[in-house]
């Protein structure tokens, strides 16, 4: 492996620092698990760098590794869907903010994943399709479904997420 490849790798993951955390958090829903997942993913990606054929595929490859790490951590802890316990105090003071955050937290993993990538990280539907490995129409359907569920939740209807 040449130095240029390493340099590009470190540059890419540094650029993605915030995105990786947000994505991991969307799956694990706790900061500690998200940190662990990102750490593991970075190490695994570094170790497996020689197997990556094209630098253009680094980002979706990295996100896939990260997703697998998140799932691995969740399996070990056998988590279901609790509310995040580590909501910052500043947010707890804002009653409507807390309700709204719970709506996203209560979504299923795949819907939450799409919502965070789209609304927080600003990826387009085409980019999300590449990162998550699903068709674009599936991404769009998931976003539409998330909107509908959150709207119903805010209107007080029951749903099963």
């Amino acid at each position: 492996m040449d130095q240029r490849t390493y340099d590009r790798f470190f540059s890419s993951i540094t650029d993605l620092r915030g995105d990786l955390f947000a994505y991991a958090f969307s799956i694990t829903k706790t900061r500690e698990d998200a940190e662990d997942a990102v750490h593991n993913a970075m190490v695994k990606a570094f170790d497996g760098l020689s197997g990556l054929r094209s630098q253009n595929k680094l980002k979706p490859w990295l996100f896939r590794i990260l997703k697998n790490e998140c799932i691995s951590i969740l399996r070990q802890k056998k988590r279901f869907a609790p509310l995040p316990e580590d909501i910052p105090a500043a947010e707890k003071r804002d009653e409507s903010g807390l309700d709204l955050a719970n709506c996203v937290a209560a979504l299923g993993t795949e819907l939450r994943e799409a919502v965070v990538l789209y609304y927080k990280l600003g990826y387009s539907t085409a980019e999300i399709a590449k990162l998550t490995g699903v068709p674009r129409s599936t991404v769009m359907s998931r976003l539409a479904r998330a909107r509908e569920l959150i709207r119903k939740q805010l209107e007080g209807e029951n749903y099963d997420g």
Partner: protein
Amino acid sequence: MMDNMEKLMKEQTEAFVPSLPESYSKMFEATVSNLKRRAADSEKNKPARGERSFAKPLLAAAAALVLLFAAAIGILFARPALAAEIPGVSGLVYSVAPTKEASEADAERIKELIEEAFHSLIFADYDRAERCFRDGYMTQRENYLAALYLYSAFNDYGDFTSDVRAEVGEAAQLELGELRMEQKAFSYTVRFTLDIMSVYAQWGGGEDTEMIGSKECVVSIWENTEGMFIERIEILAEDHQYIIEDGQPLIENIPSTNEGFALVPIDEAIRDYILFYSRHYGLNYGIDMLNGIIAELEAIPAAPEDKAVRLNILQTELEKAEGKVVQKYLPYEQIASELIHRFYLGEKNGEMSEFSDILEHNEDTDLFLVEAYHNAESTALGLRTRCDSVKVIVQLNELLEETDEFIKAKFGYHYELPYRFVPDEADEEIIVMSGSRTVTLTIEKGKNGLLIVAVEPEYEKELYSMIRAAAEKYKQQGYSWQEAGQMVADELHQKNLRYLEWLENEAKKTPEERARETAIGLAGELMYQYWHSSRGIPDSAVNHFTERTEQTDLFLWDTLLAAESVLLGVREPLFEKVECGTEELVEILEETDEIIKALIHTSVEVKGDGIKHIEQDIILTVRKDEPEFKIIGFENPSEDCLFLKELEQIAERYKAQGCSWQDAGRMAYEEVHERLENLANGG
């Protein structure tokens, strides 16, 4: 124009994801530092250029041989696939190889292989499936059952819904969740949760993805120099045991040999299958099935000791099932069976059966007789095909009330009506219409025998429900039950006569008239599908009968954008439901043997705030290709499609620059799509 919902979504998501904690930043920096150090170390350990070892030449010859041998072994351990088929060596390599997690690159290949194999099994494409497997995959029990499960879980599911399904090829979605992959030499074990989903369009609008199966799966994969192949699939489920070899069409699709059948232990599978059917269709039906399977088993050439074991199990199950039949209810089951049997017999013969000896004609039985008469008349008038025979099995499922005078109970029944069917230039086929239903009967225990005094079928969306609703309406207007029943019977009779007249008129039409009608008839369906897509359904049926030509290209892109604009949240659906589309010919503009071009007025009924109609004028060009006509030209002079005009203006610009119509259309779509995405993102 930004939807408020979009703002709300952004706020919610921002509130959900916390800002980067300090601990994360520290972790991140530390990890990057460590990895950079490792990268630097790996650079340092590379041998420096120009360095020479004076000792090497003396050991070079012996070392070269050792290195060559070590390299060969090393290659085999590093690339165990190379060793997979070398006798003796493969065993050694496998035994000493560590178990480790599969690499990302291998994981991708494995995922693709599994998806390919599972898709091919779902759609019974066994040639394609065979390429994914190692040899003789169907002779392995788990693979065989997995294939049966995958096929029936998806294909049988559609039979139990009343919703419209998209094309089967477009409607299967697999998701492999929680993939865990281990590698030991050239062998991989993959564990995952398989979610099988059906994506379907519902009547009245909307699309849904329905989970029809979620199972834990374990797949064993083997790799050689030619690639990866599946050795074994194990689907960890109970319900796939319901699937057995009993002559269902599924079996014909699978190229199993006699050995394949014999290798499948049918003890548990048969037992669970029988129980499943008994619960749903009645014990008597279950007993019938057991007897049938015993007869079939006795006929097949399996090993005698094998057959003896299985026959013994089946006989035991048969005795248990027969023991559960409650003898004292037999007379009631017999009269119920007589009632249902005569009902279908009337339909078969085209002549109303006699019921007066087993059924009292009163307000609670009148509508049952109205339906029976209508079915018999339909057959007599030639509006229904006659079946060959009637088979009915009835069982008392639940006793609701019993006194010395009467019994009220729910009866379950299963019917089978075989029809003879002769497709053009083909051999005769027997198609069996069958089903299972329930009916509540009140039976009087008179001195002269049993008499049914009330009949209440329990099924929705059937003719009886319509009859009941119509009769209720008349009773509420003050008519007696006798008058209401007669009025409903008269309406049904008139309906039959109108249908007969329509059939006679249809028979008189020339082929040219029929072709013209078919072509014009596409217009209503086309605009129905267009507005249906505009509710946010991207896979539109518009594509099924529209060929992509220069004259339809932009309309097809418009249909897609109509759906995507809703999915992006830029536009709310204009209405809740799209009911139906009709058309009226205004003027034929051109007609040859091959094509017809016409100005057509369409009307699509939609439901939102009340019912309204979307009226449009369109010019369609249709190619009269039997058996499926295709739309090859579309114009919208009333300019009321959602994005068509905008697309036309943009496409014209690209064509003026020399682009082909295909490129111009696609670029126009992408331009509009990008504009919609920007709107969605607050731009």
